[in-house]
Every structure is written in structure tokens, then in C-alpha cells.
């Protein structure tokens, strides 16, 4: 019974992960992709928590903390990098500028 319920939870989280990958591939701007990547990492964290529940093991808590830390700092690093290099108005504005100039 409990295993069936855990499998249902795994299926729900896998569907959420696939939706995140869809947004990661399609996202119109870079910022959308950063956001979707953060969400995908957090889905992986949630699956790790479910795995820890399934195998009745306490050793996955460090993994949960470390992976969520990695996702957070990845998002922060991307945002701080893009604050300097992303053109005003997004990539489409820059491409339109390039087409206008010559």
C-alpha cells in the first residue's frame, strides 16, 4: 500500500520534472531558462526526499541540503552574471539593433 502511494508520488514528480524540461527547452528568454533550471533542480531535491522515505534511510538529508544549495547558488551566479551582460530589453532587442545598424 505504502509502496504504491510512493510510486504515485514519484510519477507526479516525474511529470513535474518533464514540464520543467519543457520550459527549459522552450523558454523565450535566458531568464526563463534560469528559472526553469532552478525548478528542475528543486524537483530533483523532492525526488531525493521521496527516495529517502522509500529506503528508510537518513543519509540523504545532506544530499538534499547540498543539491538545493547548488541550485540556489547556480541561479544567483547566473543572475549576477547577466546583470552586467544581458542587453536592455532582452536578446530580441539586441538582435533588432544589429539588424538596424548596417
Amino acid at each position, binding site marked *: *500500500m*505504502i509502496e504504491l*502511494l*510512493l510510486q*504515485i*508520488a514519484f510519477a*507526479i*514528480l516525474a*511529470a*513535474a*520534472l518533464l*514540464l*520543467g524540461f*519543457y*520550459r527549459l527547452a522552450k523558454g*523565450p*528568454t535566458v*531568464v*526563463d531558462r*534560469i*528559472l*526553469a533550471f*532552478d*525548478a528542475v533542480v*528543486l*524537483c530533483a*531535491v*523532492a525526488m531525493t*526526499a*521521496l527516495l*529517502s*522515505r522509500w529506503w*528508510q*534511510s*537518513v543519509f540523504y*538529508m*545532506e544530499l*538534499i*541540503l547540498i543539491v*538545493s*544549495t547548488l541550485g*540556489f547558488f547556480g*541561479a*544567483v551566479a547566473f*543572475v549576477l552574471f*547577466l*546583470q552586467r551582460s*544581458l*542587453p*536592455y*530589453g*532582452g536578446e*530580441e532587442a539586441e538582435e533588432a539593433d544589429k539588424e538596424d545598424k548596417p
Partner: protein
Amino acid sequence: MNLQMEHVSVGVMILGALLVLVAMIGIVRFPDVFCRAHALGKGLTLGLMVLLFGLWLDPATEVSGLKVIAAIFFQFVTLPVASHLIARLSYEKNLPRVRRR
């Protein structure tokens, strides 16, 4: 009693997984970056906190109680910060946004 707690913990974890799924549907369906950052910062935070709370309720893994609480606190601190940074970046760079009447 222990068996009841196991069922309760699995039910709470399924509730958290459903909240995560709802947040991801929001990330896919919402029209611009600001709405998506809203779905990330509220839906995913609540979903992960509920899911880790279900892990905390489980009687077999309760020896790691303080670590689970630390993980819940960490999600509660970092996820809204990341969402806010993303929304602030897209506001500063004037990314396209929807305006509907």
C-alpha cells in the same frame, strides 16, 4: 500507531508532490517571466516544505529530525530570494511582459 503515522507521512508527501506539480504547471502555462517567478517563489516553496514535513513525520527517519527542519528552513530562506532576484533582473532589463485589460 506507527503504521498510521507512516500512512499520514506518505499522504502529506503526496500532497507536497501535487503542490510541486501545480507550481510546474504554472511555470509552463504563465505568460511572462514575472508570473513564472511568482509560481516558483510561492508554489514550489510550499510544495517542498510540505514534502519535507512529510519526511519529518515518518517514524523510521525521525532521528534526523533537526536536519529535516534545517532543510525546511533552508528552502524557506533561499527559494523566495532566487525568485526575487530573477524577477528583479527581468525588471531591470525590461524584458517583455503581458498587459491585458
